[in-house]
């Protein structure tokens, strides 16, 4: 990621602590080693279990929305449909219904984001340094430059943990807007949408694909917002995070207004 960051931003506020003397360097290296050992000592589970859980989130939200439209008494006994059928049903729902599904997924993502940001910070990673977040009077300060370490934290540490890889490219206009480009977004990496499938009536394959994939992108948007809301002092409603498909991946555009 660091190779691709905006050239102007690269040296402006680096996430690395300044390493001046030999002693500081040694100390830093020792901290890094300890951090590596600590990371290895943490309990782990199979990645597959986690991926299934993440993927199942979307059909879950869809089935909740469908149930809401039905009478509670009838829906109580009906069996939930298979996951892939639910995902295809998503396209057939009305726009407000789709939006409410997205909100639901966003909330789950938000919960993950706000929780893991705490977890990551308490892991004592020596590469993390948010001192620039605090202005001279010790209060939170969130104009564009101070946001950058937080965005880098999202691109490197958060993304690495949640999606297994770092964000490929981070761009900013220094006015609170950030573009995060992920060329290989992990939740949709293995997706195949059947062409002319019986579940998809619209023959415009491309459009369908995008609509079906939206909930999976919303998870990431929720995570980004969750981390931001936890680390900077700002009204979450004022922040926006939209995503779009670009030629070579998915772009998440985050805007944080100045307070």
């Amino acid at each position, binding site marked *: 990621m660091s190779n691709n960051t905006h050239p102007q931003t690269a040296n402006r506020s680096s996430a690395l602590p300044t390493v001046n003397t030999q002693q500081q360097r040694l100390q830093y290296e020792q901290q890094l080693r300890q951090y590596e050992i600590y990371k290895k000592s943490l309990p782990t589970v199979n990645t597959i279990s986690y991926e299934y859980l993440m993927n199942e989130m979307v059909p879950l939200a869809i089935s909740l929305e469908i149930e809401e439209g039905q009478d509670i008494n009838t829906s109580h006994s009906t069996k*939930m449909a298979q996951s892939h059928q639910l995902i295809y049903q998503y396209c057939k729902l009305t726009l407000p219904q789709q939006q409410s599904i997205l909100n639901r997924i966003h909330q789950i993502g938000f919960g993950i984001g706000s929780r893991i940001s705490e977890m990551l910070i308490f892991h004592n990673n020596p590469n993390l340094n948010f001192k620039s977040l605090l202005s001279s009077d010790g209060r939170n300060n969130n104009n564009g430059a101070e946001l950058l370490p937080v965005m880098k934290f999202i691109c490197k540490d958060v993304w690495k943990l949640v999606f297994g890889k770092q964000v490929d490219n981070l761009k900013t206009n220094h006015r609170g807007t950030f573009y995060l480009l992920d060329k290989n977004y992990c939740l949709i990496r293995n997706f195949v949408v059947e062409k002319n499938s019986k579940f998809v009536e619209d023959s415009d394959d491309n459009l369908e694909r995008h609509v079906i994939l939206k909930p999976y992108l919303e998870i990431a948007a929720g995570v980004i917002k969750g981390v931001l809301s936890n680390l900077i002092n700002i009204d979450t409603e004022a922040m926006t995070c939209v995503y779009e498909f670009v030629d070579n991946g998915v772009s998440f555009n985050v805007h944080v207004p100045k307070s």
Partner: protein
Amino acid sequence: MSNPTAAAAVSSASASSASFNIPQINKPLKALGDDIWTNKTAKINAELFTLTYGSIVAQLCHDYKRDFKRVNEKLFQMGYNIGNRIIEDFLARTALPRCYTLETMGEVLSKVAFKIFLNITPKYKISNNNNDLILTLGENPLSDFVELPSDAMKDLWYSNILCGVLKGALEMVQLDCQVEFLSDMLRGDSSTEIRIFSLKLLKDEIPAGED
């Protein structure tokens, strides 16, 4: 067949196919599970897994307005859908043949299945006249540092997704059964126990059409 023991159901099935050479498990299961876990598994931070599941349950409780019975049901369904698919991964990794006794099934579930997916080895015991399999989870990565609010203690089975996964996965290998939580440490019980009962062998059927 009306509610036979799994062993009886299996013996009748194996009698009809006696001429075939029935593959038996001849590997030590613990070594198999450990080997797959250490050498062939991509791993992820367990805390992340816990937090993700926590966010999902929290959202469900919110959506169902704290109707915990429905939350249990939904978690079960979610697990069922996962189990349907995760069994394929399990078979591909372990290449284990069919289990012919409840005893082997318990051993495979605990030492291989739980080991490679969650890195835990629950204790198992067989009770109720060789009809039930009870798994006792010493640790549970789904519920690490979870504390239930007092209104949820009575009705919510926090890790009910596990029951769903077991049910979904077993159904895919032609074992119909019921799975439920007997106790959960989150509710203040002394142990966390899952009961698998009323096992029935499903006959080969053409799956119900999707349309």
